[in-house]
């Protein structure tokens, strides 16, 4: 069973499908997180041209995770995937300080979109293993997350390449689904 089997205990409807959208700049670690969720090998990842989708079935619980490429040329297509999203997962490379502003702008464009209105957002502060990476709380401040009032949000420190922190983030995802 993958990591997502923990989601099982938060739902009573066995056939319920969830749509999770993984976004963020290129090289943030979206595909690595997707592969961790699906319990797949993470040593042979390539840059995402277009998108990847994995459906993780866990005891009749179906989770559709959409991982959309993050490079600038692809970002205009992000909006095509907004509809019916249950939770937005935004991934940030905590050590990429040069593009901190860029990733913040992209996040706020997402949050101001009508189709993502009220959709809970989980921010992964990824690559905590790198020297000079921002801590989750510093990153939350830098991105201005505390000013978000129209939805529930959460920041989670993680190192996807080592598989740490991803699970904790998913537990929050479960709770926010349960509340809905």
């Amino acid at each position, binding site marked *: 069973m*993958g990591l997502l089997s923990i989601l099982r205990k938060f739902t009573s409807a066995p056939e319920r499908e969830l749509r999770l959208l993984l976004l963020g700049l290129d090289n943030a670690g979206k595909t690595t997180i997707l592969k961790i969720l699906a319990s797949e090998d993470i040593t042979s990842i*390539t*840059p995402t041209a277009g998108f990847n989708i994995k*459906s993780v079935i866990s005891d009749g619980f179906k989770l*559709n995770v959409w991982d959309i490429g993050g490079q600038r*040329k*692809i970002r205009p297509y992000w909006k095509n995937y907004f509809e019916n999203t249950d939770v937005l997962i935004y991934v940030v490379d905590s050590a990429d300080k040069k593009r901190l502003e860029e990733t913040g702008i992209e996040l706020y464009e997402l949050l101001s979109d009508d189709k993502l209105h009220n959709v809970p957002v989980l921010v992964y502060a990824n690559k905590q293993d790198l020297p000079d990476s921002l801590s989750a709380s510093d990153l939350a401040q830098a991105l201005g997350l505390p000013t978000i009032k129209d939805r529930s949000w959460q920041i989670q420190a993680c190192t996807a390449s080592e598989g740490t922190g991803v699970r904790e983030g998913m537990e929050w995802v479960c709770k926010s689904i349960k509340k809905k």
Partner: protein
Amino acid sequence: MVTLSPTTHNSGAPASASGMNLASLWWWLAWWLRPLVKWVLRRTTGLCELQRICYGEVSGAPRVKGVERSLASSRHPQLRQLVAHLDDVAARRCFTGANERQLLQRAVSAVLVAKRINPTVHCGFVAAFGKCVEQIWGYRQLAAEVELLRQTPFDSADASHERRLLDLWRSLRPDEPLQGRISKQWQDIGFQGDDPKTDFRGMGLLGLENLLFFASEHRAPAHHVLAHSMHATAGYCFAIVGINITHMAWSMLRDGSAQTYFYNTSRSLPTLRLFHCFYSYLFYEFDRFWAEAKPTNIMEFSTVKGQFERRVRVALSDPRTQFRVTLAVHHV
């Protein structure tokens, strides 16, 4: 409205129990019956299984794969020892030069002794079997070499890595000097940002070497593909797609599906160069396939790539498939 098209189902239903039983029943039957069938054939034809394959199958993949299967299922202690030894040598990448010639001789004589074959009568078998051994363990050695390159991450601090990256630029953009090592120009050849170093990811140096070989050794086809990749709607990111093609070529090499290509094209020990040729072939053919699929935009990449990969795998599953090695540019 987006329709769901799940590509993988993890932790889905386990393989059906009856299917498993049938498979293991078949395996047991084959295990017990094979020696009997082999004995009858040996009595009636006067030839051992390896001889029947070498004489009966056409050269190239059909023959090499036959020998490979026969050796893998052999229960003869000397042959099992031989296979284990050759596997070890190939994994250490020592199956070259004088060592290779010596190992080939040893392999041939081990079979001659084990199967009591007279080499003067069966000189055709000696030559054919030697060639097969060279291909089988040359392929395994190549897989080890490719894996080593893939596991070497691209490192900006390594001058040789940097030099190869700049060579790639010069091969693809000979008339346009690069303004700086960090430059938006990298996006013109399909990297994601201003610095390609993070784009090689899990393909490491292998991704760069594949691209560089295609761009420098097959210059005209590579420029042709690069021009296609810049199409306003049906365009794609040349380098990024190239790195995804590296993944495809590597996975086919690793799971053995690429054997058909290598056994049918290689005349001697398969080398890294031949892997680069396989990659170039895949990239060039993908470009054509992509154009024929008439995609609306890059978001169709994973679907089209999946269709392309299936088509290549079907072709590779027939050992008689021949591949065009020289890339011809068709001007449209």
